[in-house]
């Protein structure tokens, strides 16, 4: 598998007068796991959604393997076809899973293979079955999402993304909507994916995952990227008082 790299340069984003991203710079190396952490409303999800251009950005540039996403040139929007072509190799997993409730697990995974990759139905069904087996759901293929637990739904969503053979995976708080006892199974699948050398960008509140799996951790606050470094330096020896404050609150909340 060929893994993508992402270069984020001087990216800013405004919602009207509100500045959601402030001149963000971040390099995401190929085959590595980058975790984005920070308080809610700090812009981490917005930044993640800019990477596959679900959100547009107002200034700066985001390049995937050297090619800018969303704009042909600064200020000139990319056409739909070119954008779709770039998105094809970027998988995304959402906080709310966003499975399509009118399709079974297998149909959810096969849909993109049929519509986007142009596979025949039998080929897509076969590939969907493989992807579902990979996330440990071979026996749940014919269930509709409403018949699956949150953790199972999120694993179907991961299978839906990896079946497209992406070179980059974006995770937007993938475990935040899950009951605590279901978080582990999703993180387990994500760890396995990281082990295969997938480039991953993960917005998360799971400090344990960030600490053990991430190659680099970026801390954001108020739309600003405050620091990016190894998990050890960000999570265990942070120098910036804003990171120290965030982690203190985190530890207080998680101690009992």
């Amino acid at each position, binding site marked *: 598998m060929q893994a993508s790299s992402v270069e984020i340069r001087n990216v800013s984003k405004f919602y009207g007068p509100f500045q959601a991203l402030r001149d963000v710079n971040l390099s995401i190396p190929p085959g590595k796991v980058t975790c984005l952490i920070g308080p809610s409303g700090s812009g981490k999800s917005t930044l993640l959604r800019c990477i596959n251009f679900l959100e547009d950005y107002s200034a700066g540039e985001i390049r995937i393997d050297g090619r800018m996403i969303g704009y042909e040139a600064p200020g000139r929007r990319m056409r739909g076809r070119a954008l779709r072509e770039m998105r*094809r190799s970027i998988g995304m997993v959402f906080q709310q899973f966003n499975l399509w409730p009118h399709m079974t697990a297998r149909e959810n995974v096969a849909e*993109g293979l049929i519509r986007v990759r142009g596979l025949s139905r039998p080929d897509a069904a076969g590939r969907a079955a493989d992807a579902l087996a990979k996330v440990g759901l071979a026996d749940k293929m014919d269930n509709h999402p*409403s018949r699956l637990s949150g953790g199972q739904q999120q694993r179907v969503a991961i299978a839906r993304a990896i079946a497209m053979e992406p070179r980059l995976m974006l995770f937007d708080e993938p475990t935040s909507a899950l009951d605590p006892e279901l978080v582990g199974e999703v993180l387990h699948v994500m760890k396995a994916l990281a082990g295969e050398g997938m480039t991953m960008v993960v917005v998360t509140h799971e400090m344990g995952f960030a600490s053990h799996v991430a190659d680099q951790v970026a801390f954001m606050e108020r739309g600003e990227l405050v620091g990016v470094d190894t998990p050890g330096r960000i999570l265990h020896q942070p120098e910036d008082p804003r990171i120290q404050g965030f982690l203190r609150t985190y530890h207080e909340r998680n101690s009992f």
Partner: protein
Amino acid sequence: MFSIPTFLESLVPLFWAARYTLLISVAGIALGLVIGTLVCAARLSPSRALRRAGAVWVSFLRGVPLLVQLLVFYYSLPLFGLDVPAMVAAIVTVGICASAYISEIWRGAINALPRGQAEAAVAIGMTPQDVWRRIILPQAFTLSLPALINELILLVKASSLVSVVGILEITRASQAQAATTFRPLEVYLAAACIYLVINLCLAALGRYLEHRTAV
């Protein structure tokens, strides 16, 4: 004295007249679905002018009683030199009126879908056409089914209004029957029974379809 034989006898011609009631309702909702879909598309379009036009269409047709729409439409046709059969005029009016409600039913169902549904499809690179055809519309249709059946039942009852342009549907036929038999209670009660049977069947059909499309 309530005359049971008169009641039973009037069921037969009224039952026959029900074919017009059904024709108007079914053709009306079919036309309403087509126009209503276009109006809904206009209301959700990026063009401000189209959105405005759709909103005017809906508020005008919802704000004027169907009976008045029917009379205005029917009596304005000769002005344009059009000689349209009463039946066609009735179906068109009912269809146009229903389109206002149907477009709102669609719009409500589409807006009720979580935004993430379409986002997930966009994120894997699906075209906007596929997003609509495969993700949004099938779910919106299922969601709106109860409201559409409701609308069809309302149309069956509203079709009694087309009696004013001389179509011999259930209501008009029962008026004629009542006048000749001098037994209005029996006749109108028979009419009520026929409407009820039609609508109970439609409600059952609705439940069946809802059950089949449920996930």
